[in-house]
C-alpha cells in the first residue's frame, strides 16, 4: 500500500518535472536564474535594491538588478521587433544598430537644430520622439521592401543599412555632435522625484503594448502562418509580402524608441559608436529565448527573457573586472555553450537519456 503511494508520488513528481522541462521557457528561465545565482554567489548583496539620492538630491533606486533592468531597455525593445521579423521572414535584420544611429541622429537634429550646445530644446520632445520613430520605420520599410518585394535574403538586404546607417545618422545631424539640454535626459535616466529609471518604465510600456497588440490583433497568427508556410498562407487569403513588410516596419518603430532612450541617456549621439554590436546581441536574445532563427513559431516572452539574460551576462563580466576588450570573448564562450545545449542534437541526446523517465510516466501524446 505505502509502496503504491510512493510510486504514485514519484510518478506525479516525474510528470511535473517532465512538463517543466518540456516547457518552451524552461531553458531561457533556467539560464537566467543560473546567471543570477552565480552573481549572488560572487556578491551576496547582488540582489539588494536601496533608495539613494543622486547628485541633485532626488531619490533614486540603486542596485545591480536595477542597473540590469535599466541598461537592458534598448535590447528588450529591439528584441521584440526582431522576434517578429525572424518569425515572418525566416531571417534577421542586422542593421538595427546602424538604424538606431539614424533614429538617434534625427532626434538630436530635431532637438538641437544646427547648434552644438543649445540652452533650450528646439522642438517639443514628443515631436523628436515621433520623428525618430518615423525615421526608424522608414528604415524598416526600406528593409521590408527589399525582403518582401524583391525577395532578397533579410541578412543581405539589411547589410545595406548596416553599412551605410551610421554615416546617414551623422549626416542627419549635419555632421555636428550636439548635446541637448538637460531636460531631454529624463527619458534615459530619471524623472526628478521619481526613483525608478525611466528606461524601465518605457520598457514596461513597450512590452505591455506589444502583448496587447498580440492579443487584440492577428499579428501573431499571421506572422507565424507566413513564416511556417507562405504558400499555404497566400491560398488562405493572406498577403505574405505585406505581413513581412509590416514586421520590418514594427521593428523600425522599436528602433526609433530604442534610439530615443539611448540618445537621452547622455543627451548626445555619436553615430559611429552608439550601441556598438547591438544587432548581434538582439539576435542572440531571440535565439536564447528558444526561438528558431529559421522562422515560424515564436515566443515573445522568451525573447524578452533572452534580452535580460544577455544584459545580466554583460554586467556580470563587467563586475568581475573582465577587461572591456575581452568581454566579447567571454560572452561568446557562454553563448556557444547555451546555443549548443539548445541544439536539436543535444536535445535529442538528453531526450534519449530521459526516455527511462518518460516510459515510467507514460506519454500522453496520441497520434491520429
Amino acid at each position, binding site marked *: 500500500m505505502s509502496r503504491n503511494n510512493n510510486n504514485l508520488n514519484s510518478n506525479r513528481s516525474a510528470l511535473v518535472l517532465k512538463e517543466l522541462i518540456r516547457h518552451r521557457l524552461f531553458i531561457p528561465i533556467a539560464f537566467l536564474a543560473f546567471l543570477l545565482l552565480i552573481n549572488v554567489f560572487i556578491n551576496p548583496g547582488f540582489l539588494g535594491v536601496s533608495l539613494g539620492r543622486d547628485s541633485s538630491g532626488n531619490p533614486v533606486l540603486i542596485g545591480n538588478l536595477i542597473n540590469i533592468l535599466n541598461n537592458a531597455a534598448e535590447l528588450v525593445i529591439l528584441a521584440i521587433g526582431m522576434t517578429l521579423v525572424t518569425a515572418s521572414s525566416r531571417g534577421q535584420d542586422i542593421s538595427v544598430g546602424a538604424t538606431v544611429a539614424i533614429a538617434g541622429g534625427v532626434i538630436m537634429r530635431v532637438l538641437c537644430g544646427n547648434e552644438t550646445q543649445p540652452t533650450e530644446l528646439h522642438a517639443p520632445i514628443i515631436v523628436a520622439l515621433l520623428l525618430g520613430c518615423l525615421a526608424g520605420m522608414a528604415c524598416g520599410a526600406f528593409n521590408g521592401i527589399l525582403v518582401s518585394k524583391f525577395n532578397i535574403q533579410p541578412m543581405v538586404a539589411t547589410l545595406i543599412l548596416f553599412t551605410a546607417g551610421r554615416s546617414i545618422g551623422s549626416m542627419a545631424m549635419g555632421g555636428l555632435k550636439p548635446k541637448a539640454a538637460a531636460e531631454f535626459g529624463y527619458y534615459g535616466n530619471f524623472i526628478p522625484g521619481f526613483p525608478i529609471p525611466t528606461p524601465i518604465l518605457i520598457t514596461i510600456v513597450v512590452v505591455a503594448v506589444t502583448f496587447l497588440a498580440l492579443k487584440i*490583433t*492577428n499579428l501573431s*497568427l499571421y506572422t507565424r*502562418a507566413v513564416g*511556417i508556410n507562405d504558400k*499555404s498562407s497566400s*491560398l488562405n487569403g493572406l498577403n505574405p509580402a505585406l505581413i513581412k513588410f509590416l514586421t520590418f516596419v514594427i521593428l523600425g518603430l522599436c528602433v526609433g524608441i530604442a534610439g530615443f532612450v539611448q540618445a537621452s541617456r547622455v543627451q548626445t549621439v555619436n553615430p559611429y559608436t552608439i550601441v556598438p554590436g547591438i544587432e548581434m546581441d538582439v539576435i542572440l536574445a531571440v535565439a536564447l529565448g528558444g526561438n528558431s532563427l529559421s522562422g515560424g513559431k515564436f515566443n515573445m516572452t522568451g525573447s524578452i527573457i533572452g534580452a535580460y539574460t544577455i544584459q545580466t551576462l554583460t554586467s556580470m563580466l563587467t563586475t568581475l573586472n573582465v577587461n572591456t576588450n575581452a568581454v566579447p570573448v567571454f560572452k561568446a564562450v557562454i553563448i556557444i555553450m547555451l546555443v549548443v545545449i539548445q541544439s536539436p542534437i543535444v536535445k535529442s541526446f538528453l531526450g534519449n537519456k530521459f526516455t527511462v523517465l518518460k516510459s515510467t510516466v507514460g506519454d500522453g501524446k*496520441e*497520434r*491520429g
Partner: protein
Amino acid sequence: MQDTVLTMRGIYKSFPGVRALQNVDFTLCEGEIHALMGENGAGKSTLIKVLTGVYSKNAGEICIKGINKPHIKSPQEAQKLGISTVYQEITLCPNLTVAENLFIGRTNNLFVNWKKRNSRAECILQGLGIPAKPAQQLSSCSIAVQQMVAIARAVDMDCKVLILDEPTSSLDDQEVAKLFALMRELKSRGVGIVFVTHFLEQVYEVCDKITVLRNGELVGEYQIKDLPRVELVAKMMGKELGDLAEIHNKTQSNTNDSKEVIIETEGLSSTSGIKPFDFTAYKGEVTGFAGLLGSGRSECVRAIFGADKVTNGTLRIKGEHVNITTPIKAMKKGIGYLSEDRKRDGIIGDLSVRENIILALQVMRGFFKPFTKAQAQAFADEYISLLGIKTASADTPISSLSGGNQQKVILARWLLTHPNYLILDEPTRGIDIGTKVEIQKLVLKLASEGMSITFISSEIEEMLRTCSRLIVMRDLYVVGELKDEDMTQDKIMYTIAGGETQNVQKQ
C-alpha cells in the same frame, strides 16, 4: 533490327512501407525514342533513379550495351556508362557561359585552352542546331535552349542512353518543336532516348515505343502504332476498356436550366498556361474536372480562386461580374479552395489544429478582429467532432496528425467559411479508404444542402460516384463535358484520348 542498348530485367525496389517497383522490365534500342508513361506514383521516376544510380535496386539486373553491370552506385558511374539525364529543372550553372557549362567537371586538366574549347563548343552547338553562342552566359538563354545545352553536354559525353524527364512542361509550342527536332537528330545518330512526359500529343508526335507503368508494375511495352490513345489512357488508369459501341447519344435534356448559377467562366485563362475555358457551376451540384496528371485540372480551379494570375476571360458569381485577383477576394465572394498538395499548399505545419481550422475565416474577418480563444476553441471542437478528426487535442500541431486527419482539418477550415462554392482538389489523395468514403459522403451531403462543389480526383470511380457532371481535360484544354448516362469510364477515357477541344468546337 536495331541493337539493344539498355535492358532492365525484373527490377524491384521498395521503400519502407511502399513497393515502388515490382518486377519491372524495360528495353531500349539504339536510335529509338521510348516514352515512359504512368500516372502519379506509377514508378516512372523511381525506375529512372534506379537506372541513374540515385537509388540502388533491391533485385533485378541492368545490361548496358552487353556489359552486365549489376550495380550502378552513383549518377557519376551512370554517366561514365553513357547514361545521361536531363531534368525538367535545369541542373547546369546559369552564371557560367554555354561553353563552360558544356565542359565543366569533365577534365582534370589544370590548364584550359579557352580558344580551343570555345571553338569546340561552337562545333557541337552548330552540329545539333542549337541557337546559342559559346561565350553567352547560360542564364541569358531561354529555358528551351538551356535544356538543349544540357542535352548537348550529355551527347558530347558520348551518351548512349539519354533520359529526358518532363523536359517540355515549361516550354511553349515552338520551343517544344525545336526540342523535338533535336531529339530526332539524336535519334538518327543512334542515341536511345527515354522520354518521360504527361502530354499525350507529344508522345504520339515523336515516340516509337511506349512502356506503361502502373502502381510500380509493368503494364506492358507497345509499338506506338499498336496502341491507340484511348487504350493508352485505359492502361495508365488501369481500366479495361469496355465496348465503346455502348456510348450513348449526347443529346440530353438540360436539367440544370431551373437551377441557380453560382459560378460562370467565359474564356478564363491564367499565367499557369491553361487555355481559355468556359465553365458553369450550379447550386447544389457536384461538378468534376477529369483528366490525366498535368492536363490542367488544378489550373482551371486555381484561376477561378485567384491563386494564379488571371490573364484573360471573365468570371461571374451568381450573375455578377467579378474581378478576382487574389484568393482573399474569392473567399469574400464565397469560394473555398482545398488545394491539391496538402503538405505544400494546405497545412501550416507547426500551427495547432485549432489555428489551422480557424485560419481562413479569421483572415476573412480581418486583422483587428481576432477570435477569442474560447470562440476559436468552440469552432475547433465543433468541426473536430463533426468530421471525426482524430487528434489528441486542438492544441496539437497539425503536422503530427495522419494524412487523412490533416485533410479533414483543411476541409474543416473551408467548411467554417460557409462557402457557396467549394473546390476540392484531390481531397482524397494519400489518405485511407475509410476517410475517403467519409469525404465522398460529406461532399454529397453538402451538395444536397445547396452548396455547389467542384471535386477533382485522379480516381475515376470516385468522380463517377460523387459528380453529376464532368469537365474533361487534355493537355491544358477542356475537351468535353459529360453528364448523366454519358458518365462512364469508357466515355471518359475516350474523351481524354480523343475529344475535341472546346476551342475547336467553337470555331
